[in-house]
């Protein structure tokens, strides 16, 4: 039996513009990696998303400066091995400062 899990994905600008939303809930198979999720999202939102997140899509390399977080822990270099748990929060954003 396939078990599904829900993950909440948050986007930072300009991904908010590319996706048309700041947040969405996504259902994936339990045991899916973060990389699998990112590639699914790239398929869904097209080249603009792909270019923003990946420096080399085929080689699964996340672009320098793009931060991927899982429950607020930065995992940009580990997306291939980290699996998504139910009710996780994924963040995809570029560092920004100020206040």
């Amino acid at each position, binding site marked *: 039996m396939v078990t599904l899990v829900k993950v909440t994905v*948050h*986007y*930072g*600008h*300009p991904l*908010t*513009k590319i996706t048309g*939303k*700041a*947040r969405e809930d996504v259902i994936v198979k339990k045991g899916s990696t973060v990389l699998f999720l990112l590639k699914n999202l790239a398929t869904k939102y097209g080249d603009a998303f792909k270019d923003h997140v990946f420096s080399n899509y085929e080689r699964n390399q996340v672009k320098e*400066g793009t*931060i991927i*977080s899982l*429950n*607020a*822990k*930065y995992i940009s270099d580990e997306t291939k091995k980290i699996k998504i748990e139910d009710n996780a*929060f994924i*963040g995809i*954003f*570029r*560092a*920004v*400062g*100020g*206040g």
Partner: protein
Amino acid sequence: MKQLFGYAGKVLRVNLTNKKILRQPLREDIIDNYIGCVGYAARVLWEELKPGIDPLGPQNKLIFATGPLTGTLCPASGSHEICTKSPLTGAWAEAHSGGFFGPKLKFSGFDFVILEGRAEKPVYLWVHDGEAEIRDAKELWGKTVHETTDVVLEEIGDPEASVACIGPAGEKLVRFAAVMNDKDRAAARCGPGAVMGSKKIKAVVTNGIQGISIAQPEEFYEAVTEAEEALKKNMPNVHTIIPLGTIGLVNIYNSQGALPTKYGYTGYFENAEKFSGETLANTFLVKRRACFGCTMGCGRYSEVKSGPWATPPHEGPEYETAAMLGSLCLHDNLEAIIRANYLCNSYGLDTISTGNAIAFAMECYDKGLLTIADTGGLELRWGDSATIINLIENIAKREGVGDLLAEGVRRAAAKIGKGAEELALHVKGLEMPAHEPRGEAKSTALLYATSPRGACHMHPYWTGSWDFNQWTGGLLELGLPWPAPDRFAETGVGKGLAVKLLMFHGVIQDITGVCRFPALGKEDDCITPKRYARMLSALTGREINQFELMKISERVLNLEKCFNVREGLTRKDDTLPKKMKEPIATGPTKGQAVTNLDGMLDEYYEACGWNKKTSIPTREKLEELGLKDVADELAGMAKTPKI
């Protein structure tokens, strides 16, 4: 006196009690050792203020300060600072603002304006072309910031002048009243507006055409160009700050569980998108705004044309304002946030402290510590726009429960009692801003605990740029631990040393008189200490490198610390609200808490060369920094623990 390149060269000293106006030359000994702006002001206030004075009494002084880079081609040079003893904290106060006032003050022929004494009747000061005159402000008293600005500009007949003024909140001595300039720019933190109100000075108005002499024009231009080229590569600016303004941080901070929500309950708000930068850009944004000499243009200009929260065009809201008057109050109505921002600007209120005080009142009401009898019939409901708007009015006018909140949350909590002290979010009496330290980074927690002016994310520098953003700020050659550790780690990973170095970097902007934002970034895409040193050297003709500049920053930060020590503050005041030691309740950072502040403090004091037990700089450290006289004075004070 030799020519001082980069400076206007004069200090304007105005005694409001006897109406004496003095034009004094800059003190070269202070310039040599403290550069200018906050550094100069810190030395003057150290020498001229007696410890223990009432910040709202005539003995206090208030200094409008600029630095050598203010008003030059240096990127984002439209800054000034206001330094005084804070009526909110009783400690060192510096409040930074952008806009045009700082450059125009220098163009008027003065680097500093020192206000002393107390006027018998309301006055304003008109500073122009090397002259200054005290004018009657009877007709201005009671007017809002926007009204005052319009009336004064018409009265002096110079629409290009810059007005820094207080609104009704400053007149009513609200302890977190701001000094607003150019209508919507705020020098707000620590309550300088209340100090102006106590002195019965409504405004300082300035303009002039005096230029700024440059020692090595070609070298300066090259150094500026290098800085500009670096900023062009700054992707955070390109991707977020330029298109969205600082309010563009709302969605990002929420995604990271660092958006302060429901007054310390959590760092995550389901409805954050409703008042985000993206939503503002698609609804009420009129245009972008930039300060003098800025290529970033982080300012927003917004308007709500109709409806219950209709608001005329004005500048804002910033991220801090949106979060403090939004998620912190569990509030998501962007139109009402814009209205609230406008009211704060009009009345001259710090939006950070105001939002904090309102959310504090909501929690007290929720927990039964404040009742409807205390509020004069006003229900203080979480997330209710009308409650927020009403409380802003009440605070600014010191009416009803607003009179209590106008004292700041520390004093208000003490008066309420019944455990309210444990709810209030402040450090040293300064209300905590909108970077939830448990969710953002533990360096931020350490910064909040140790910043000389109290809980602040930007003074002297946003340390989260290192462990939250993974930026260096150009500090690698100066010893910044790298790579930055996990943002939630506390001790044993170099956070004490890093916070110290990042603070020194921030003081560079404070003493040269420029905006902090261009200093946030990586080695190749921000203005590093080395780039500041290059510009400063060419401007002033005094060769200085990044190491020497950081040493001067260290001297200034130590002097600010000693100002607080002299006022009786010690390690016990370098603390965090109780809630910061409790876990965040929901969202991506659920469970995060500050668990070992004492350990982080030990590491910070050790890095600074301060006594770990008392937090006081050691005599050895002060003498190394050329502050022997400061060490002697502290040692001679009966109240002060031995240094």
